[in-house]
Every structure is written in structure tokens, then in C-alpha cells.
């Protein structure tokens, strides 16, 4: 379904906001078809780095390439139509029905008959087809973000950017949606870049985890390598929290007395 699987390359990308260096000379290669998680504390520069790809942020220095071509080689709106974007605050258009929201990228591409495609996309994100006629304010938070994902995937982008997509959801909902997205990634052969502050989420979903700290990539490893103690101190400090929690839960489950 995607046009093609896309790779992303950062070359010495820097971005400075007044008073703070958000991204500090990052160079990085994201292979087509991989699921990469960008993990880090607030202010580590992970969201800024992500948004240089679809040009919601313009870097002060360096180049971002998609499939080897600089992202600023085409007008921003044309670039963005080839990239799916999902973010924490979802941003469904409140004056449009679910179907109209999902069909927006198709409409921008000039397609007329969108009903069939909307039904397919609702199936894809596991929402009932009769949701098409509902308005966004009649949906739960999890359902809204599923619509957001369906909208991002509507015209078959090869690249999916997600900025804390589960941040505003309750734990049960976020787990369900996270599994659904991983399944979509595999089925559609997407390249997916996920920004999250939750290391457990990154370890469970991604093929490759990048830990960001003060605008730089502090660690770059597979989940397995991180769990085995690799990646350096900053990464291990983040891995320690979910590991500790998992151990305590396992102890309690194993019938250990208090």
C-alpha cells in the first residue's frame, strides 16, 4: 500500500531556540522499514529533531534527507503529503466528521470518491465503520487518536512520524493502540520514527532505540542490547526504571510475602 519505504538521513543538524540549543549537530541514518524510537527527557531535543523531517521546524544548520533527497527540495506542503504525522494533541478538525477528517489527505491530493478508502482505513485502525459519520467530540481519547493514525496513513505514506502519540491516553488504551501501530508498521512496511519519554514503550515497540540528551544522541542500540546493559550510563539510567518496576511486579506475582 505505501508508495515506497523511505529512509531518513540527518547530516550535522542543529537547531537553536532563544536561550537553548535544542539539537546539537546530530548526524544519523534511519534505514527504510525500521521502527526507531527517540527517547529522552523533556527538553532533550527529540521532538525538535523529529519535526525537522516534515519541516514543522527548520534547522539552523545541517541537512535532512529523505530517500537521499533534501527535504527542502520541494515545497513544504508537498513534502508533508508524503509523510504521515501523528502527535500527542491529535488535532482532529472539530468541524469535520470522522470520515472527512480521514479523507483530508485524499482530498488534498484531488481524489473525489473517498468513502471506500475511509472504510478500509477505519478497519485498519480497528474502529467500527459506522464511526465515519460521527463528529470528533463524540469519541473517546483513544478512538480519536486511532482516527488521527488513520488520517496520517490515508494516502499511503512510506514514513510515519509520531510525537508522543500515546501521551494523553490511559494505560490500557495506550497499550492497545501501541500494539496496533506496531502491527500496521509490519503489515504496511512503513518506516516509523516514534518520539516518547517512556523507555518501556520504546523497548517494547522499536527495533532500535536512540537516547537523546541535551540535543545529542547519547545512545543508539537495539532494545536487546540496552536490556543487556549496553548504551552507556545515560541510557542505562532510563532503562533501570522499567526494569526495576518489572522485577517488583514479578516478585509480587511470584507469591513473595511483604
Amino acid at each position: 500500500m505505501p508508495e515506497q519505504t523511505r529512509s531518513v538521513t540527518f547530516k550535522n543538524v542543529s537547531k537553536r531556540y532563544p536561550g537553548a540549543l535544542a539539537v546539537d549537530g546530530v548526524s544519523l541514518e534511519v534505514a527504510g522499514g525500521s521502527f526507531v524510537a527517540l527517547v529522552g527527557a523533556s527538553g532533550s531535543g527529540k521532538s525538535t529533531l523529529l519535526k525537522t523531517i516534515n519541516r514543522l521546524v527548520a534547522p539552523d544548520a545541517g541537512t535532512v534527507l529523505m530517500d537521499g533527497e533534501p527535504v527542502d527540495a520541494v515545497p513544504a506542503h508537498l513534502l508533508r503529503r508524503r509523510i504521515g504525522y501523528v502527535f500527542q494533541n491529535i488535532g482532529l478538525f472539530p468541524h469535520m466528521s470522522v470520515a472527512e477528517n480521514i479523507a483530508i489527505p485524499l482530498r488534498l491530493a484531488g481524489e473525489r470518491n473517498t468513502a471506500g478508502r475511509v472504510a478500509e482505513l477505519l478497519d485498519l485502525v480497528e474502529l467500527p465503520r459506522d464511526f465515519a459519520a460521527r463528529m470528533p467530540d463524540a469519541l473517546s481519547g483513544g478512538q480519536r487518536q486511532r482516527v488521527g493514525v488513520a488520517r496520517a496513513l490515508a494516502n499511503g505514506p512510506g514514513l510515519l512520524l509520531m510525537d508522543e502519540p500515546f501521551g494523553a491516553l490511559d494505560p490500557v488504551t495506550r497499550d492497545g493502540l501501541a500494539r496496533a501501530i506496531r502491527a500496521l508498521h509490519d503489515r504496511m512496511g512503513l518506516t516509523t520514527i516514534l518520539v516518547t519519554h517512556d523507555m518501556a514503550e520504546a523497548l517494547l515497540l522499536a527495533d532500535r532505540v536512540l537516547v537523546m540528551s541535551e540535543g545529542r544522541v547519547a545512545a543508539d542500540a537495539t532494545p536487546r542490547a540496552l536490556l543487556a546493559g549496553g548504551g552507556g550510563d545515560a541510557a542505562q539510567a532510563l532503562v533501570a526504571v522499567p526494569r526495576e518496576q518489572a522485577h517488583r511486579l514479578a516478585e509480587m506475582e511470584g507469591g513473595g510475602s511483604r
Partner: protein
Amino acid sequence: MTAAFARVPELLAQHLLLALSALLLGLAVALPLTVLSARNRAVARVALGMASLIQTIPGLALLALFYPVLLWLSALAGGGIPALGFLPSLLALSLYAVLPILRNGVTGLAAIDPAVIEAADGVGMTAWQKLRLVEAPLAAPVLMAGIRTAAVWTIGAATLSTTVGQPGLGDLIFAGLQTQNWTLVLAGCIASAGLALAVDALLGLAEHGIARRRRWLAWGSLGVLLAGVLAALAPALPSARGTVVVGAKGFSEQYILARMIGARLEAAGYRVEYREGLGSAVAFSALAANDVDVYVDYSGTIWTNQMRRSDVPPRADIVAGVGGWARDRHGVLLLGPLGFENAYAFAMRGAEARRRGIRTLADLARQAPQLNLATDVEFLERPEWRAVRDAYGLRFRSARPYQPTFMYRALDSGEADVIPAFSSDGRIAASGLAVLEDPKGAIPGYDAILLLSPARAQDERFQAALRPLAGAICVQAMREANLMVDRDADKRSPAEAARWLEQRIAACR
């Protein structure tokens, strides 16, 4: 009662056209400004600041200010820009309409959830698509509320357009105020309030339709509004040809004389329109610019105000001087004096004048510091007042301007002790007022004179219709006609008084 409402449909149509044209022009200015303001803070500050500033200018003043501005522009462009009537009213009211639309539009755009804007960018909308698909529909309810406010304001303020010669429901209100015909005032108020409520309700329905995503409701109510405009437009279309305009300033004598002149012109086959309630300063310029074809002015008014003369020669010399000046400077024809004078005449309550022993302005000057002066709205700004004041050393305890009608009321009730009355006013005799003599001759003569625009200065048929009025109206006849309109009991309309005066003047000879 029915007579008061008889002119309502015609004036309502004019009123609706003016107010909605102003609203549309206001929208055309405000909408692009709104978008620019939402994108750029500096533009927003300047645009909102200017719009607020304009809002603080009183409506009457804003309308009046457009008159000299348009005259000046017309002179720059070599003529052809009408400075009276529809155009200045349209421009002033449009400026008024801008603020509520702009402010609500900017507020509406600012209130959009930033996440929605991020999503619009994220899916790859261009700036125009974002505006059309997302920002405009989301800001529409707030914007629509601003448009409704603007509509109500514009319809209300359009009543003031009477003063620059644009007919509307204000004609009823101003004429009613002048002649103390409260039914007429009420008719104008009810009609304009009704119009405002109806337009507001229709726009409200459209707003409701937009908010509830019911297109038929939105388009339906806007359709009804459009139908109203078309209905208002229908009678206005063919009126442009062969129509002459009779002007009148804002008091009873002027309304009566305008109707008398109009009746004669109609009898001569002209289609007649009236521009009533014109300001003194506006009237002569309007005539010189051919916006008005004929009106009655007073020799002393032109002499002191337009010609800026401060000497006071005999009455006949003033008339001759005005005639020569008007012809040479403006191509305006003085067809002749009507035969009576309407001079400023300082008047007091008869009993009070006798008690104080005041018979002349010189007597008055000695006691003036204990007395209050009430004047019409323009008197204190006129050179005649400065001339009289300086000639006699008049210094009153207080001096307050009123509408002419209320000036007499103030004298009757004792709020004021002295007024500059008008010598042709029937109320002087009817209320037993004492008119003070002017031994120094400081007040010039105020012969009523018939003035014709440059365009009519060559029109023999037009002049033939009005020439019989020259020298035909004696002051006694004019006073009686004025009193018919001004008195409290058994009031007559200016048109009725004009018909009566037409019969009465035979007895003047």
C-alpha cells in the same frame, strides 16, 4: 398616524440599501485585514487601533467629515465625485462596520486550538487551504457574531445619514424632532429598530445554520436577506433620470419652503427628490457642486459665513453682494429674494423683559452677566454672534446650544432667559416674546433667497416654475405657516403647511 408611516416603505428601502452596502464594503475591508492581523502582530495592533479610534468619533461628525474630504478629492480628480448623499454615508458607515468584524475575526482565529493548526500543516495544507478548510469554518461563528453587531450598528447609525443628504429613516426622526411631531420620530425609530432586529435575526439564523452544519438554513436566511435587498433596489433603479433635488436645512421653515418649491417643480413636470436636514455649511457647497438643484438660504448667512464679511450694509446691498459673489465664484444663480426676512432676533420672555426694563441689546448687555443664553446648535460658532457680542460687549452667565425646538422650550421653562430667535418664527408672537432692538445695526439682514445650482442656472423651464415665488411671501404668511408646523396642538405636516402657504401668499400682495 398613518400619515407618519406613509413614507416608511420608501425610506426603509433606501435605509436597507445603504446599511447593507456599508456592511458589505466593511466586510470587504475587514476580512483581508483580519487574515493579515492573525498572521502578523504588528498589522493587528495598527488595524485594531485604527478601527477603535474611528469608533470613538461620533457618527454625526464622521459623516460630516467625509463631506470636505470628498469635495477635496473631487477637486483633485477634476470633479465627478459626489460629496453628498450615498457616497459619504457609505464610506462613514463602512468604517464603523470594520471594528466589530475585525475584532471578532481576530478573536475567532486566535481561539482555534493550536493542535488543529499543527494538524493542518502536518497533512500538507497550503496557507490558502488552511484558511478555507480549517480556519474560516472554525472562526465563522465568532466572526458571524461580529457581523451581526456591525449590521445592527450600521442600521442604527444610518439614521444620521440624513444630515449629509442621504434619504433614510433618519429623515422621519430629524423632521419629527424639528417640528415636534413625535409620531414621526416614533415611526422612524420603530422602522429602523424593526429593520435592525430583522436583519440581526436573519444573520443569527445563518450563524446557527453554519454552527449546526445545516447549509440550507445558512443559505436560506442569506437568501431572504438578498431578496429584501432586491426588493429595496427595484424602485431605486429608474429614479436617476430627470430627477431634481430640493434641499432643506433642518428647521420647519426650510421643510415648508422645500415642499412648496417641490410642488411647483412637480407641476412643471419634474420628478422631485428632497434632501432635508442639511447642515448650514453643507447646503451651499452641495448646491455649488450640483448635488442639490435648489434651496432657500438667507443673505446674511452667506454674507458672514461663506463670504466672511464682517461689515453690515443695508439689506438690499447684502442681497446684491451675495448674488454677484455666488454667480462669479460658483456659477450659482440667485433667482430672487422670497420677500421676507428671517433674521436672528434676540428675544426674552415678555414679562421678564418688562420687569428688567430691557428693550434693546444695549440694555441687555448691562444685565447679561445674570442671564442665561440658549442658542441653536450652530449660533455660537457663527461670525454673527461674535459681531453682536463684540459690538455690545455681551457676556452671559452661561451659553448653551439646543436643537431649535428645545431652545424655545428652554426659554419657556426659565432654564434660559435669552435666545437668538428667528424673526419669521410664529412662536415669537404666539408665546408673547419680547424682541430686542439692535440700535448699532450689528446683525446683518437675512432675506430669504432662492438659490439655483450652476446646472439649473441655464434651465429656463426650471426657473419659470419658481420665478413667481420671488418677492411673493410676506413675513406674516411665513410666520403663520411656521406656527402650523411648530405648535403643539393641531399640528400640520410641512407639506400641508406648504399647500396652505401657496394659497395664502395671494393675500400678501
